[in-house]
């Protein structure tokens, strides 16, 4: 059993997805989905332990040897990503049953869980596989189910957002497909490990440059890197709350994982950063993303839209850390992936609670919420403090590493800009705090009660994780550092 863990990580949710249809009542389906997600989480913990103890796990599907067969390869980088994805998925699912009662019609609720599990399976497939084309397949599985999930939103703008995401996402995926095809053409293999061995010989050809360029652009579309981020704000804002909480914490991280995996493990760091001036491009785009998105966030009236733009800004930070091209920078990016998942998971889930109780996430409907929903608002405040980077929260840990990495690389202006970006976060989060605590409730909103426990428990689990991992950073820092070092070929 233990030997098959890598494939079970993906197969369990994948098979469970259509099985949901067998169970009739949404309540049963919810429990089933929760069970499945929980098992996936346990598997990911087991895998992480195995990897930390004995190094890279290689699993051949069906016993077929690589490079002809498909290989699943778990190293420290995907182990931690698997942990993030399954962890967030499970915690978010805890609130799903209650949340979708208000947001999705009853006849569609079972289908919601089917799509959710499919998306989960897709993302897990992307991070576990060691085969390039397999990546494309799972990318499309997760994306298509994500498009459908977003379209389940109550507001009709969800349909439009989903359609736009579909068009942009499919273009991105097709670019990735072109890139994979060109790589295959030049090397004759699709296995990532094999590609990394064969690419250096043919690396200086135009074909490989083109392949690299297509891959990078395609991944950046999925990553929502400025200026290819246009699909993200609407998609996150109008999707059902559970979907937003899940996707915001996982989807873009998976794309970033792909970027790291392809540039470091497949093409090799030296090739990647010398063919295209990736460092310059990414640091500029990353910082632009931080400022443009943060400033846009300040002017939003819809709080979900506000935090969606904030997510684009945070992705900008991750890209800046990546662009430093050093162990320290990559550690900072990986840390921020982990921490941001916790932050945004908590925030969007809390917003889901607000949506559940008052049916709206407009800023003017937040007036007086500080008194009416104290625990929910407290969760939003802590999550916001984490975004700003206040000490003792996870956000501070990421920021420290990011600034340190920039300074170590001699990029003092970048360090200054990173910190200035945090100040913008203060502006847009404090608008919410002021609305909730300083204004009296609007007419008609006086009878709001606190969110039900089914929301409060997962929200506060995530918020406590925010604080816990901000105080006890051993797990996240050790794994992130180990993963970064192994990608650079330094450590074990």
């Amino acid at each position, binding site marked *: 059993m233990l030997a098959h863990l890598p494939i079970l990580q993906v197969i369990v949710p994948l098979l469970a997805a259509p099985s949901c249809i067998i169970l009739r009542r949404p309540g049963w389906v919810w429990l089933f989905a929760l069970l499945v997600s929980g098992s996936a989480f346990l598997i990911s913990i087991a895998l992480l332990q195995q990897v930390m103890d004995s190094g890279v796990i290689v699993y051949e599907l069906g016993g077929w040897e690589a490079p002809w067969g498909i290989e699943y390869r778990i190293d420290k980088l995907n182990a931690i990503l698997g942990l993030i994805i399954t962890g967030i998925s499970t915690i978010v699912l805890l609130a799903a049953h209650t949340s979708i009662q208000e947001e999705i019609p009853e006849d569609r609720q079972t289908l919601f869980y089917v799509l959710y599990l499919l998306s989960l399976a897709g993302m897990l497939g992307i991070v576990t596989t060691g085969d390039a084309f397999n990546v494309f*397949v799972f990318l499309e599985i997760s994306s298509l189910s994500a498009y459908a999930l977003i379209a389940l939103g109550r507001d009709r703008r969800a349909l*439009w957002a989903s359609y736009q995401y*579909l*068009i942009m996402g499919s273009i991105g995926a097709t670019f990735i497909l*072109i890139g994979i095809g060109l790589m*295959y053409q030049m090397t004759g293999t699709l296995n990532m490990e094999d590609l990394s061995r064969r690419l250096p010989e043919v690396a200086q050809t135009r074909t490989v440059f083109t392949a690299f360029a297509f891959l990078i652009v395609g991944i950046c579309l999925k990553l929502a890197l400025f200026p290819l981020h246009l699909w993200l704000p609407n998609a996150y804002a109008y999707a059902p709350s559970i979907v937003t909480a899940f996707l915001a914490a996982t989807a873009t991280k998976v794309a970033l994982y792909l970027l790291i995996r392809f540039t470091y493990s497949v093409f090799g760091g030296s090739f990647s950063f010398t063919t295209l001036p990736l460092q310059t491009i990414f640091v500029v785009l990353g910082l632009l993303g931080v400022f443009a998105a943060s400033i846009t966030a300040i002017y939003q009236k819809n709080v979900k839209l506000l935090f969606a733009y904030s997510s684009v800004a945070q992705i900008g930070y991750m890209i800046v850390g990546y662009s430093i091209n050093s162990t320290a920078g990559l550690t900072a990016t990986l840390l921020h992936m982990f921490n941001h998942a916790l932050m945004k998971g908590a925030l969007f889930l809390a917003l889901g609670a607000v949506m559940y109780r008052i049916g709206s996430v407009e800023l003017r409907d937040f007036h007086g919420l500080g008194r009416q929903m104290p625990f929910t608002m407290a969760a939003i405040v802590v999550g916001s403090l984490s975004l700003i980077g206040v000490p003792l929260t996870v956000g501070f840990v990421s920021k420290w590493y990011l600034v340190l990495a920039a300074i170590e690389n001699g990029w003092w202006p970048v360090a200054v800009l990173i910190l200035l970006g945090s100040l913008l976060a203060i502006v847009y989060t404090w608008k919410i705090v002021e609305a909730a605590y300083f204004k009296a409730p609007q007419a008609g909103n006086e009878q709001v009660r606190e969110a039900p426990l089914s929301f409060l428990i997962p929200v506060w689990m995530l918020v406590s994780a925010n604080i816990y991992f901000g105080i006890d950073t051993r797990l996240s820092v050790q794994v992130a550092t180990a993963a970064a070092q192994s990608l650079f070929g330094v450590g074990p």
Partner: protein
Amino acid sequence: MFLGLYNYWIVVVLMMIGFYIIIAHGNLVKKIVGLNIFQTSVFIFYISVSNIDGGTAPILAEGFNQYSNPLPHVLILTAIVVGIATTALGLALAMRIKEAYGSIEEEEIQQRVNREC
């Protein structure tokens, strides 16, 4: 150069046509058609690459020792299925958008969306 690499030219032309349709047309269904053409160009690229000069169909047979590469065919089968799923989803969304907004023209929909915000 042109004649020897004609398959690549076809790929490039189709890709650009598809891409152009997606960007330039406002009709939702036309965008999906454009996406399809775009994806088809990639299929053609893969399949044309798999063809070996002087190779026969990839089925083991006596007397032949050069076969075309079957792997890209397999990959493209998968990609075609993905493309079908995307098209189906896109068209379904277009239908629901028509129900909700009364139009499948991007400009009109965008106007109605902006009015709501």
